[in-house]
């Protein structure tokens, strides 16, 4: 009876596994590129400290002191941390889904889907926050 149920149920067949493997390969590429870009951005901001401070002090009055730059770096590190967490979910999801398909492990595959779900939930929350701030700036 259970065997019949399993035949009639949805499966990760050859087409699905090929599409998912390709998707996870690109997702892995995106997450690794994102990690590298985030790291480079933080290094760039710390290395170009004096140039950025002088450029911003011309635009924003009172931005010349070191505390203002410290605040800016803190904001950038927080943003980079959030983006890295998002990318971590994407990376984890792509790794686990691929591993689950290769080893035909249901548990690993489900864990991969859970990580991908976390990635899309976080993206959705960020998108909502972005939209709200966009709407607020409109009025």
């Amino acid at each position, binding site marked *: 009876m259970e*065997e019949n149920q*399993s*035949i*009639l*149920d*949805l*499966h*990760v*067949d*050859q*087409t*699905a*596994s090929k*599409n*998912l493997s*390709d*998707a996870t390969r*690109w*997702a892995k*590429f*995106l997450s690794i*590129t994102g990690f590298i870009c985030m790291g480079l951005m933080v290094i760039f901001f710390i290395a170009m400290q004096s140039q950025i401070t002088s450029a911003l002090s011309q*635009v*924003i*009055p*009172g931005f010349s002191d070191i505390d203002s730059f410290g605040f800016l770096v803190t904001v950038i590190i927080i943003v980079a941390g959030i983006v890295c967490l998002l990318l971590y979910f994407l990376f984890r999801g792509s790794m686990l889904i691929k591993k*689950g*398909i290769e080893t*035909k*492990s*249901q548990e690993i*595959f*489900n864990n991969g*889907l*859970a990580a*991908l*779900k976390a990635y*899309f*939930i976080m*993206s*959705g929350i960020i*998108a*909502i926050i*972005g*939209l709200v701030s*966009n*709407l607020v700036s*409109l009025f």
Partner: protein
Amino acid sequence: MEQDVENSLFDLSIDETAKDHLRRISSWTMIIVITAVIGYVVAIIKALMPKTQGTQSEGFGISINTGQNLGSVILGILIGLLLNYFLYQFANLTKRGVNGMSQTDLNAGFYNLKIYFVIISVLVIIVLAFVLLVLLAIGAKAAGK
């Protein structure tokens, strides 16, 4: 036929946990698509609004409105709409596949997810190549001085 049945027995199955994850993923991707489309409408409204430079705002010194031109906004929206179309297709087909037990819809959903990631990756590669070119140009200019 027998081979197919044997294959499906050894395939990974989309069990209840996986179905629940896929349903949630579909719901959230749909939220992302709707949010993005509303965002595009807001972006068009903003681009059509008269631009003000250096307006005084309360409590935070001067706020600078750089003002984007309509062309770049439309280009951004077109790329965004293309991306969100595949994300929408993924959400729609996956949900339909899981709820209606349709293997074809589920496979089509995964295919659209693949296309979505491929397009983002290609865009990222183009942007990185452009940034690299700009950096090389700046470096060459600095070396020439």
